[in-house]
């Protein structure tokens, strides 16, 4: 673990922002998450990699309870994830999520996609919400598309809007579930650049990805998962140059050989 205790700071800033304890989940007979323990510190960027079916997406989705867990405990900023209801909705508002398939609201304009959360969930006035949305859209470089519908944008643009939509809720942590896997190759970098910029600004991020370049550039820590377990975790430098587990060596051998 990289976290170092800093005695002078108050408990809320040394306490991990996201914490998983002995989390287990099954899909029928398949044990997709096995005794997962994970702490993510405030401002930390954690990249989760691993072969398909290793449980990394499920892990990511469990953190805002889009997947329920069978046992164990997940806390966000000290609060245990509640059951479905108002409390959970409130907590989800603090956790930004970016999906593989963008999932922009198909019947709403780009601008409305970004303002909907602040207005309907946080009760922000439409005027300030619009200003906020436009500044976020500008930040990810799609402010000139604000009046269009999602289907009129390229995949890379849609995913950047999805990032802006999540940021509009001013989340404490952002989850990225394979954000570039559905993109054409030439659009991957525009999304990764937005993510790197976000990481540099100190956003706490948990990123499930196959983009090793992103892990090298932006991650504080790399988590390698296989068969529903965290096999190893290390700094990107250490993980990519000196993986310890055989599974990790095998995985890296397969993806880095070209």
């Amino acid at each position, binding site marked *: 673990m990289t976290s170092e205790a800093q005695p002078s700071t108050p408990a809320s800033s040394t306490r991990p922002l996201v914490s998983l304890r002995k989390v287990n989940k099954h899909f029928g007979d398949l044990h997709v998450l096995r005794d997962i323990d994970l702490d993510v510190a405030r401002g930390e960027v954690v990249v989760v990699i691993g072969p398909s079916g290793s449980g990394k997406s499920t892990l990511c989705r469990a953190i805002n309870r889009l997947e329920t867990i069978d046992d164990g405990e997940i806390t966000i900023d000290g609060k245990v994830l509640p059951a479905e*209801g108002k409390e959970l909705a*409130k907590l*989800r508002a603090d956790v930004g*999520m970016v999906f593989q398939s963008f999932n922009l609201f198909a*019947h709403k304009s780009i601008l409305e996609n970004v303002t*909907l959360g602040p207005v309907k969930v946080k009760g922000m006035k439409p005027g300030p919400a619009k200003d906020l949305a436009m500044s976020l859209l500008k930040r990810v470089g799609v402010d000139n598309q604000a009046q269009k519908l999602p*289907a009129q944008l390229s995949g890379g643009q849609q995913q950047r809007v999805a990032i802006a939509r999540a940021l509009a809720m001013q989340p404490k942590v952002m989850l990225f579930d394979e954000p570039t896997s559905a993109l054409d190759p030439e659009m991957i970098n525009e999304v990764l650049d937005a993510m790197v910029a976000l990481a540099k600004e100190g956003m706490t991020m948990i990123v499930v990805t196959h983009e090793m370049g992103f892990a090298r550039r932006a991650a504080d820590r790399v988590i390698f998962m296989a068969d529903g377990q965290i096999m190893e975790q290390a700094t990107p430098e250490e993980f990519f140059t000196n993986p310890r587990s055989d599974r990790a060596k095998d995985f890296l051998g397969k993806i880095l050989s070209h």
Partner: protein
Amino acid sequence: MENYLSLFETYDVPAAFWVNIQLSFWAAIFALVIGTVLALFRISPIPSLQWFGAAYVNIFRNTPLTIILAFGFLGLFSVMQISLASDLNASLFRIAILGLALYHAAFVCEAIRSGVNTVPLGQAEAARAIGLSFLPAARLIILPQAFRGAIAPLGNVLIALIKNSTVAAAGSVATESSGLMKTMIEFRSDLVIPIFLTFALGFVILVIPIGLLTTWASRRLAVAR
């Protein structure tokens, strides 16, 4: 021919159709409201509401409309003395609307549910992920897209409803078209076939524009993905 035209002097055919239009209009509005609520029940995360929605749909969809409307007149009105207006005819008219609405609500519910199936799961997940709970997510994200995907099946329900409004005769709404047709056939048995064709044509004229309109609207309003 003169014989045939004289029918229209004796009997007010347009007025009878107007009764069907009014029955259909009000029943359609109530069926849409009730059907939407039922669809919400069926997609809600609460098991007892899901159960109620499913039970309602299965009971009303599988009961003949004639029985529902006859029950409205004989059961609600005659036996239980439930009256929805001070005037007898107005009360029967409203009970018929109620019966038509309750029956077609089951079909509206299923049409909307088929519309919900056109909305990818990711839309609901994204709505939940930004902190919307079930009702706001349904109202703002799921239902608007579901309705646009359900225009064609909803149009089919409306077409069925308009034609089914003739069953209101079973609820003793004697002024509607099939009631008038029965009277006309009784008194002018020499013109049975022209009378049938007149009413058939009347309904075709009423219904065709709805089919055209819903086809056009479902293309026009389809959600681009």
